[in-house]
């Protein structure tokens, strides 16, 4: 566990440039130097003692996390002696035995905690900013605070680290989240942890809204977006249904194809009813006899119904085509051409049969079209 020593002190107005020190480790050295330069005013003997810890601290900052923890304890302990430099003359010897130092630090810290429970509140409010930043920054921040601490030894500094540590353990998950949300280099203003928690709770429901950046989130826009998605899904289905629509992109073009298809089907119905009317003198089809003749193939016959859509460049002719269709069918219904056509081609579109009657060359090209489409 890291021991963020500083925060209790940071609530005090005397903190020198807390944000800058928290930003990056490069600045840290300078800050330390800056901090170091302060103590001599209080006691000239400090400079000798301070000579060692800053170097250590700088080197510690670049060391991995695991060692950092132990070292931070050392750091805190290193600074502690400066608080009472006159009583503790043997502070220089501390770095030699790190384990001992750590234990001593803990002991002193715990003792301090027992003494100063009143400082918990202040530590709580200010604990967030120092802990929410990265581990490195934590140490960095704790460092100036620590340095600050011996500037005014009257404050109960030593007690703060553990109380803050306990809180840090409790609040860690929340802070992790915060850290993910916020940018890395963002320096946060000191907020109370309670505020942060409520902020999280407020942010949660918005996760489910599927609004991308820059999109409106009011109910009308969302409904409109849902409607558009629905339409697009249906259009996809239509695209699959209508032949030759798969490769087309663009709503307008797809709609064109759909319109053509529907029109072609409607004209086919028109034409077929005409054809049936022409074929039969009576309207009453004798279904039984037909079924008998066809051998039941009437229902089962599976025509490739994809023949049509390419055929409608000559849509405009359709109006007057019906007129001459009648006469034409009147004349030609009983001609052998019909039978030949029916036998020769499985699928005969109205245009095909019509045009093949007019000119065989034209019909040939037209017949090749559906074949291509089948491929």
């Amino acid at each position, binding site marked *: 566990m890291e021991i963020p020593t500083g925060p209790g002190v940071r609530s005090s107005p005397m903190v020198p440039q807390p944000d800058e020190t928290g930003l990056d480790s490069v600045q840290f050295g300078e800050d330390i130097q800056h901090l170091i330069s302060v103590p001599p005013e209080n006691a000239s003997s400090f400079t000798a003692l301070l000579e060692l810890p800053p170097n250590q601290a700088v080197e510690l900052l670049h060391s991995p996390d695991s060692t950092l923890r132990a070292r931070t304890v050392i750091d805190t302990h290193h600074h502690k002696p400066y608080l009472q430099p006159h009583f503790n003359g043997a502070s220089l010897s501390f770095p030699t035995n790190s384990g001992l130092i750590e234990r001593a630090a803990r002991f002193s810290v715990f003792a301090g905690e027992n003494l100063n429970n009143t400082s918990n509140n202040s530590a709580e409010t200010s604990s967030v900013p120092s802990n929410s930043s990265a581990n490195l920054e934590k140490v960095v921040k704790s460092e100036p605070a620590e340095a600050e601490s011996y500037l005014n030894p009257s404050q109960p500094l030593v007690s703060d680290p553990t109380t803050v540590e306990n809180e840090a353990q409790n609040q860690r998950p929340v802070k992790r989240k915060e850290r993910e949300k916020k940018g890395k280099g963002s320096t946060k203003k000191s907020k109370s942890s309670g505020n942060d928690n409520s902020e999280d709770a407020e942010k949660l429901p918005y996760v489910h809204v599927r609004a991308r950046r820059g999109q409106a989130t009011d109910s009308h826009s969302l409904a409109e977006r849902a409607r558009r998605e629905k339409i697009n899904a249906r259009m996809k289905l239509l695209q699959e249904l209508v032949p030759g629509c798969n490769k087309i992109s663009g709503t307008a073009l797809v709609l064109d194809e759909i319109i053509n298809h529907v*029109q072609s089907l409607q004209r086919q119905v028109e034409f077929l009813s005409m054809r049936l009317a022409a074929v039969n003198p009576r309207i009453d*089809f004798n279904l039984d006899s037909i079924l008998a003749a066809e051998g039941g193939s009437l229902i089962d016959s599976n025509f490739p119904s994809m023949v049509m859509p390419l055929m409608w460049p000559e849509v405009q002719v359709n109006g007057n085509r019906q007129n001459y269709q009648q006469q034409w069918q009147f004349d030609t219904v009983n001609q052998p051409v019909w039978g030949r056509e029916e036998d020769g081609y499985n699928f005969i579109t109205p245009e095909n049969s019509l045009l093949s009657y007019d000119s065989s060359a034209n019909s040939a090209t037209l017949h090749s079209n559906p074949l291509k489409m089948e491929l």
Partner: protein
Amino acid sequence: MRAPQSLKQEFLKKWMVGLQLCESTNQNMSILERKKAIKLSADIAMASTRNGMTCWSRALVAKTSTDFGNKVLVDNILLASQSEKLKNKRTIIRRKKILRKSHRARKARGGRVVARSLAKEMVKKRTQVLKSLVPGGEFMDDVSLIEETLDYIVSLRAQVDVMRTLAKATELMNGK
């Protein structure tokens, strides 16, 4: 959506009933009359296969019964089961029409969005065309229009297939 085979069979059955009814009402018809009767009965048979579940079938029945003035024929064809149901739906459609009209009027007063992209305009134009093609399409919104178009296309295909096979069969019978 049902299987196309059962759809075709049902359509054929209903169509035959309709044709017999037409035949019984008018014995001597010209070819144009015959054609009209065949188409009418085919349309209504196709619409009735949907059991009034879809907008386009209801609109088709409504249109055929009003436009051609052969309400009696339509009613006769539909007499078996769905006539009443479809008629009821028809009144609903009319109400919808009125409602839509008032809505449109309100919109026009409110003013339109001035800047509109070309693509949007194209799509709108085509949607209008499609609405005019699909029976009852004028009363649909975009989503239901596309759904109805899907259904309509499927039904039309079944209709075309059945009609084509029937035509072929009768021609074979007559020709040979």
